[in-house]
């Protein structure tokens, strides 16, 4: 029974940070129409913000996490302005540019922090125990932050003018611009949010993963699987798929092994693609 509870706790944590990453990736794809291959590196940069500010310069952990969100969000705005905006009609060009960008980010982090892992001491050793399962505060932070951030994002997209503009752009760029919605402004905000979510995921999990300059690769592959299962254009789908994937992967790892869990994950994605190519929550129209 402990094992079951502990596994459920583990899965909840995994679902939380994966959801942040996947929602960011979907956001960028939805508005910009580009596959941001550098998304894993944005996560990595977020983690290194915490390595620098919290572990090396001793700023408070939450401040470092907030800085990670803002800094990586700004990196996203820079990407939008310098790469994705000029390449708006050239999604493959945007893909290549994001590959170039990830190489640059990796190398810069190697120069700044060395090629070996960054070290982040936990911000607290506290933990809660229930039904024989352990949940550390460090992991609880991630779960709470993910819920708060995603809820805030949801409210923002529902209630604000920006949110409506954002959704309009994601649905139909031309119609949106005919309605007088500024594509540039919308894209900038979407990029800030999308990148910032990846950054905050990296920042929050930095004490738990031992970040290296090359960790982005593991992240992006998982994120791809999740957004495919959820449906590429759907934010809600990304969240639900993250939960689904995290639970399946965690339970299979615990009850079989990690390699089989990866195979199951891929098979899940492939079968979703075959049965319902637009993902579980994607629009009917195929891209």
């Amino acid at each position, binding site marked *: 029974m402990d094992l079951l509870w502990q596994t459920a706790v583990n899965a909840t944590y995994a679902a939380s940070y994966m959801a942040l990453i996947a929602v960011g990736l979907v956001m960028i794809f939805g508005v910009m129409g580009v*596959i941001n*291959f550098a998304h894993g590196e944005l996560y990595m940069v977020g983690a290194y913000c915490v390595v620098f500010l919290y572990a090396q310069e001793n700023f408070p952990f939450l401040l470092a996490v907030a800085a990670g969100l803002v800094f990586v969000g700004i990196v996203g705005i820079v990407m939008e302005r*310098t*790469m994705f905006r*000029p*390449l708006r009609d*050239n999604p*493959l*060009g*945007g*893909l*290549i*540019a994001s*590959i*170039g*960008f*990830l*190489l*640059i980010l*990796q*190398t*810069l982090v*190697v*120069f700044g922090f060395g090629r070996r892992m960054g070290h982040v001491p936990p911000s607290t050793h506290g933990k809660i125990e229930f039904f024989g399962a352990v949940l550390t505060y460090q992991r609880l932070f991630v779960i709470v932050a993910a819920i708060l951030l995603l809820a805030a994002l949801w409210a923002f997209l529902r209630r604000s003018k920006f949110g409506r503009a954002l959704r309009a752009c994601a649905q139909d760029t031309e119609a949106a611009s005919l309605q007088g919605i500024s594509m540039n402004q919308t894209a900038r905000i979407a990029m800030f949010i999308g990148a910032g979510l990846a950054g905050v995921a990296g920042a929050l999990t930095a004490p738990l993963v031992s970040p290296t300059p090359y960790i982005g*690769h593991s992240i992006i*592959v998982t994120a*791809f*699987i999740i957004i*495919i299962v959820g449906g*590429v254009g759907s934010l809600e789908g990304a969240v639900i798929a993250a939960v689904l994937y995290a639970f399946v992967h965690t339970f299979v790892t615990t009850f079989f092994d990690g*390699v089989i869990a*990866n*195979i199951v994950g*891929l*098979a899940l*994605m*492939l079968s979703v*693609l*075959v049965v319902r*190519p*637009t993902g579980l929550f994607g629009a009917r129209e*195929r*891209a």
Partner: protein
Amino acid sequence: MPEPVGAMPATGTGGSIGRIAWRLRPVFLFAALAALPYLLSYSQQEIAVLLVINVLLVSSYRLLTLTGEWSLGHVVIMGVGAYASALLAKQAGVPVPLSMLLGGCMAAAVAALLSFPLFRMKGFYFLIGSFAAGEIIRLIWKRFTDPFGGPKGLKRIEPFPDIETGFLSIDFYEPVNYYFLALVVVSASLFVLYRIERSRIGLTFHAIHWQDRLAESVGVDTFRYRTLAFVIASFFAGIAGGLYAHYIGAVNPTRFSVDQMVYVLVWAIVGGTATFHGPILGVVVLTVINEIVLRALGLDTARPLIYGAILILSVLYLPNGLESLGPRLRALWQRRRGGSAAAGSEPA
């Protein structure tokens, strides 16, 4: 740039020396390619061998992109050819040139099988679907140590047999000799690929890309044509895999990972995919920059950074690829000369 024989566009009727030279392009090209290894150092010859193999890989990839689909599984398909050819030679004792051909056929067969699930998807979904399919193939190589060798892959793959006759002795360990072997195989393959593109089938591929609903409405079975493009492209990727496996002598699952695929994508897009020679231009220029220029500059640890910057700058300032550079420069040149020599300058 590398254009196979028979690719000469119809030129004007004039007889100036320049025009004759233009007509003789293929001759010059082959002379240059034959002379090339003797102008290079030994290790640069090694790079040239791999470059020729990659030319076939990226050109075969372009055939698939004609139908508008971008795959992330092409390098894994190359790996299927490499593994199949290596295993046939190692375990079944099939002679090497034949095993390469069978490796190509195996790659084509796997592609035909994969086309059933994959061509239910289009665009972005196809891209990701092909990635998933490729990953599953790679996991199979990793998981089934017998016969695929697990994560370490296959080693000591039979080399291409030496040719020993009375007066001729060719040892394919020497990069210069393998370069010529690869050059012959790849030229022949490119010729076939080029003819396919110019045939009615090739035109149908184009039609599917630009007007798939229309093509369907006039009775074109788009699924069949997409599959055909995928299978042909995979066959040649498999051949490239065979050429690789029997030269390097080793294959492993990491060699065919998505990181390597990203390079193929980069070569194709930086070169440009509107013309046959675009992707070839891309692979040649980027390989020379990355493997020769940046290394010669002694920038070892900064190499990925500069390479990344080059990628970004090239898609920003050459959105139609390196292939668009030639016509642009020519237009500039002609404007300078007042448009006096307009004829005979149109590339393919």
